[in-house]
């Protein structure tokens, strides 16, 4: 009598729907990052502004003399502006090694030898970064909106500015997707997370410096589309129905953002491959 039957047997395990494997990568990445104390400290600091503004909302809602602190559309626009620095830190911390570390340890080949497509791999990595970026942009902004309603015990502000809900969501998505795609593309170009991180910060601040110099020299902000951050600022003003801060046309900023995301997709398509064919 055989101790163990080694003949062919059909696979008896469960099968996942095709196209859902990216979720495994995202879940594992999120779980891994949540276990790091330094990262949790960064996330906590990123929520600092939310707590401060929550106190201000409470005071303005409960003390009529502090009416000057009452929230407005500008409050939510400023909230996103002040979160930009944390978007940078989270992008650098989470995103710089997402693909670079896999390339460094030759894990990409192992990933892609599994029933996992390249799109799913990129989507999984993108999900990790996007999740944490939304946690410092969209989630606190929506929570602030909710707090305003709760503290004032009235839907007046929300009904008066109903566009804030889609505006907050749209701007947060634009910011998060731009940061995620560009960082992932840069991460796929290198095997060093450190190099990728500095490259991202360099691109961000260099384009800003170029715009600042040209603005000073030409005394015009027509070249705002040159700066990654200025593009987002310009788009943000339009989304929040505020007067655009730069003279450059806002569709130019939208076009630049879309081009950057498109370029990132092309880079990812070329760089994320299981086997590199050298000709």
């Amino acid at each position, binding site marked *: 009598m055989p101790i163990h039957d080694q003949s062919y047997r059909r696979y008896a395990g469960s099968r996942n729907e095709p196209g859902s494997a990216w979720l495994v990568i995202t879940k594992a990445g999120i779980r891994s990052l949540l276990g790091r104390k330094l990262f949790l400290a960064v996330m906590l600091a990123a929520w600092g502004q939310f707590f401060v503004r929550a106190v201000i909302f409470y005071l303005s809602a409960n003390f009529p003399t502090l009416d000057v602190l009452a929230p407005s559309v500008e409050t939510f626009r400023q909230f996103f502006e002040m979160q930009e620095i944390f978007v940078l830190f989270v992008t650098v911390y989470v995103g710089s090694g997402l693909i670079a570390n896999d390339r460094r340890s030759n894990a990409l080949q192992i990933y892609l030898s599994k029933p996992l497509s390249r799109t799913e791999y990129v989507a999984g990595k993108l999900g990790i970064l996007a999740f944490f970026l939304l946690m410092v942009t969209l989630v606190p902004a929506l929570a602030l909106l909710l707090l305003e309603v709760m503290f004032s015990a009235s839907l007046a502000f929300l009904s008066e500015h109903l566009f804030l809900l889609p505006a907050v969501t749209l701007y947060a998505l634009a910011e998060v997707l731009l940061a995620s795609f560009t960082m992932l593309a840069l991460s796929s170009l290198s095997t060093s997370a450190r190099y990728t991180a500095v490259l991202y910060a360099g691109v961000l601040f260099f384009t800003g410096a170029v715009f*600042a*110099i040209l603005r000073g020299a030409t005394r015009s902000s027509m070249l705002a589309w040159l700066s990654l951050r200025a593009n987002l600022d310009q788009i943000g003003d339009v989304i929040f129905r505020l007067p655009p801060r730069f003279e450059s046309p806002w569709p130019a900023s939208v076009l630049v953002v879309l081009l950057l995301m498109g370029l990132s997709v092309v880079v990812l398509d070329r760089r994320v491959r299981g086997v590199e064919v050298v000709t």
Partner: protein
Amino acid sequence: MSSPHGSPPPPSTPVRPSFAASVSRIYNLSFGQMLWSRRTVFMVLVVGGPVAVALILRMLVSMDLLDAGGVIDGRPVTIDGPVIFGLMIWGFYLSFSVPLLGVFYGTSLIADEVEDKTITYLFTRPLPRGAVLIGKYLAYLVCAGLLVLPSVMLVFFVVMPLLGGSIGAGFPDLLKDLALLAVGLAVYGALFALVGALFKRSLLTGLVFVFGWEPIVVVLPGYMKRFTVSYYLQGLVPHAMPQDGTVTGLVLQVLQANEILPSATVSLIGLGAILAGGLGLAVWLVQRREYVLEQ
């Protein structure tokens, strides 16, 4: 094999190189690695960008698309070569290139060896550990200086003659700017060498310091701004900056009126203290710290 007297020769005692010789050896090794690496591409981009912008500005002036007079916020301002050069020193080099290169190279002096698991090979040689750090630091300084300073000179010669500026009149300012940037590279490098030796996630710490802490704290009232490098560096810039009747002159007047800028003496003392303290502490840490490599 025996000596003519029948006894074996005494074993030769290995000669331990002096600290200076050790520094020199590490410097020679690291300089070549730094100069001919992928990072140099990054450095060339960082320092080549301002040159490209300077060329674009020159082109705009030659095509009469840029003139000297203008109005900003209702105030008449004069823009000429020295003003644009001053803007570029502030905007590109002092606020961006120098801190970024300091963070990138300073934090990687030790961190890269740890990450690549090659620090063991360096530390098992008969060299003082401190010499490893100092040698690498000097290699960074020379490498960064060799790229940044020529870039500034190129920008100077392209931009200075624009819109009535004079190369001769601005030359003393160029020398001051070159010295200032060299000091900036040295101080930022020393500070981030310490950060690299101290923290595991040194790059993030460096980026938080340069792009988070410094821009916020430097405009706060009180003593907080004294815990930044940019505060002391900015105290030395006005000598090279154009004054009255210009955009930067107005900015400087506001900053000085609010005591946001320190005097030159205070700046030099502050920068010297950060340089000596940062490098000294980094050497002390590297000599005592046990680096456990991840398997």
